[in-house]
């Protein structure tokens, strides 16, 4: 395997975990996602909706786009909203990472406000998962974890105002899995505001390179 170099890593996913959701939260997403396609509600080229609600785990309902997939996801039994980048982005590791977080955050907030959910869907903005969807550039190894976790620490330290939040990073899964990192935020002022600050301060912009 190649050495993990953060700036070479693409296809970063960000998942915000669900806090509350109605039993039919996946079925309710189908009309919502179709409407998002009609309204061109996201920055990406939205293509179609894939329904995997019949599977007890894994991707639940996916809003398939050219550049990325949005999904209400139950992979590893952790329900949440995931933004999984598919095409390459320009910029640094930090830019790409924060871009994915931003897209997931925005989609989550938008989804919560959709009338189908009647306020019954909410996300825990203090509980995130970062997914590196490339086994060659970011394997789930001790070495890659060490490099990535240091880089994540550095980004959070540099981006968040002093004493505004603390965080804990946790490596998830086993070597065969994609490298996944759980990010647990503790923020007295509220996680939603902190995440907003985080992505606003970076103001990343996507430049599809392919």
């Amino acid at each position, binding site marked *: 395997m190649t050495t993990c170099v953060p700036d070479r890593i693409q296809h970063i996913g960000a998942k915000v975990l669900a806090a509350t959701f109605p039993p039919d939260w996946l079925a309710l997403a189908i009309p919502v996602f179709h409407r998002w396609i009609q309204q061109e509600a996201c920055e990406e080229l939205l293509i179609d909706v894939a329904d995997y609600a019949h599977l007890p785990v894994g991707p639940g309902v996916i809003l398939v786009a050219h550049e990325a997939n949005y999904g209400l996801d139950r992979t590893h039994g952790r329900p949440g909203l995931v933004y999984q980048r598919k095409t390459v982005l320009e910029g640094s590791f930090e830019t790409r990472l924060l871009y994915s977080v931003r897209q997931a955050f925005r989609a989550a907030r938008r989804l919560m406000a959709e009338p189908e959910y009647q306020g019954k869907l909410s996300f825990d903005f203090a509980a995130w998962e970062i997914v590196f969807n490339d086994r060659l550039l970011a394997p789930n190894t001790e070495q890659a974890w060490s490099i990535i976790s240091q880089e994540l620490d550095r980004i959070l330290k540099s981006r968040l105002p002093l004493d505004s939040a603390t965080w804990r990073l946790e490596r998830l899964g086993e070597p065969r*899995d994609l490298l996944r990192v759980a990010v647990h935020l503790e923020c007295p002022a509220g996680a939603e505001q902190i995440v907003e600050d985080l992505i606003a301060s970076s103001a990343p912009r996507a430049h599809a390179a392919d």
Partner: protein
Amino acid sequence: MKASNPLWTQQLANQLPTGLAEEIQQFEDQITLKKQGRLDDKVFMEARLRRGCYGQRYDNGQRHDGVRVRTLRYPCGDLTKGPNTVWDAPGMQRIKIPYGGLNARQLEVIAELAEEYADGVAHVTTRQDFQLHFVHLDDTPTIMRRLAAVGITTREACGNTVRNVTACSMAGICPDEVFDVTPYARACAYYLLGHPDCQAFGRKFKIAFSGCPDKPCGLARIHDIGLIARERCSNGHVQRGFEVLVGGGLGPVPYQAKLFTEFLPVEELLPTVQAIARIFAQHGEKRNRNRARMKFLVEKLGIDEFKRLVQQERARLPEDPAWASYLEEHGRYQESPPPLGDACVSTSPPEDPRYQTWLERNVQRQRQAGFVAVTVPLPLGDITAEQLRQLADIVRRYTPDTIRTTIEQNFLLRWVRESDLPALYQDLVRAHLAEPLAGSIADITACPGTDTCKLGIASSRGLARELRRRLAARLDSLDPSLATLRIKTSGCFNSCGQHHVADIGFYGVSRNRSGYAVPHFQLLLGGNSRRNGCSYGLPIVAIPSKRVPEALERILACFQAERQPGEDFHAFVQRKGKESLKALIEDLTQVPPHDADPSWYVDWSDAREFSTEDIGVGECAGEVVTPLEFELASCERELLGAQTLFEKGVTEEARQSACRLMLRAARALLEWLGVTAREEEEVVARFKSELCDTQLFFDPFVGGTFANYFLTAWEQRSQPADEDAVRRLLNEAQLFLDACHACYVRLASARSARRQEAIP
């Protein structure tokens, strides 16, 4: 495109078999040439199909979003990967798994690929393949390299080639089999892979092996070549061979295979298959792809002439050592059972009350004492990457590193020690893979349909999902005669879901209701997958999608109430007759007006207004039913009468009725277009000039096939026809009526769109 693709090429440089590495590099070079504009669209399309890279719905860059057709503006601009197929549009990668045989490492790699290049799900098909959906073409060479590194090829998974060679998933362990067909299926698959004699077919070519004549695991009779294991005694020795069937196939009009020979010695297997392939390549139709499958060639030549040509070709073939060499290494492909007395984990039976049900439904005894085979049911053939890895662990723990996909879109674990069943069950439960549904009415087969298939008319997966949900919930309380019925759904008439051989089959069609398209499913009853797919169901009536569950309930209730002692569903359908079965559900064919309930005009698992053409459906022109709709409904009724006549053995009258109703439908369609044609010959002539020559009647995917059914039937109506031909004619008449409906939907939509444009 994945950032690591070039790195994978380096990473795997020394791990790929030389031939495979070269083939994949050639394909990658073709991709480069296509991007440079140096390769023709059609040539490139066939090249990628031969590597298993298939198109997917909306890959023409157009999608109806429920309100209007939207152009999907991909960054690739005008670059295409085939005629009218946008480069950046997601596609499907099919992965060939000969006889469905896999090991744990291969499962893990498929999991990795599903996660990294697709949508996290791998789909098992009715031909024991895997499919990954939403894949970018630029990633496919890397996918192929990673598969090749674990001994899997995608070569000839699509295109006009020998497709995946299938075989009973119980081969080698089945108590009823004559012998293990695995080594023969394997030899056949790899002998024909890339063989020069198999590169010039007009259409795809499918081969299946079955270990016995009676069970439904092999479905030999629905294949271009079906091989059923046989043994005979010769000079005191038991000789192995195959009963060979040729020219079977499903598709819009199903054909039962014809007997080629009752016994072909195994030494003659490969040369005979090769000779058949050569005859198909030489004599098969090339220009009209809708008549290019081998079933049409066998029908055209007649089985005796076909056989004569094959035998003549066989005699001419130069000797090939590969014909026999595999027989010498036969033992290499036989699985070694794990030691019996060595249970993985000693566990007492779980307290889970579903364990016993799981044992009854999902576990089968092997012919080897002490071992069992365990079915792992997959909902709609889908499994997540995470589950695939868990399954790989289970394969390593409980089997000699072997598992098979089944034609019912499930997995089969083989060589499980009976003593391991409690522990295995608990591991499967943890992986969400222990649903006790195997072989039941809730274990529904479904092709991809409108979810991802370009040809899909209605949502076969949506329907299957809904039926599965309802039936699984009450499976335990169902009468056993109902619980073991089989349901298969297809999104269109092409039968990828194998609906013809189900007890209860469905295929997607569309109907028009006051200018709106309504998703429907044609119901077929009485097909039979046993005895290798021995009989096909006949269509009863098209039911609005949303009413299919209700129709199914009525059929099941009627079977339960009126079934005679010992009567199976097939016999029940024959006894009841289609007319009475249709009457049972006919009221369910009614669709409320769009204004009253628009939910009928939306398919399962979708939120968009239903559309088959990716163009906006017409505005409702009032609640007036056109004379054409009345006439088509009347033709449907006449067809039912013709089917009843056929059942009673009055074949000639049935045939004349079928010809007549097609003519009536054609005349009605012409009249709706404003073309008056009174005399019969005039109707045929005007149908040709107004609807065929203009291609207005042509189906977007099969062109003039359905029109030809009518024209050919009319032309040949005075010639003699046997029972088989009349049965096919009745099927063709149904498809022609479906095509009339579809044509009406298309033309009405276009007319409505023009009206809309004209409004200032």
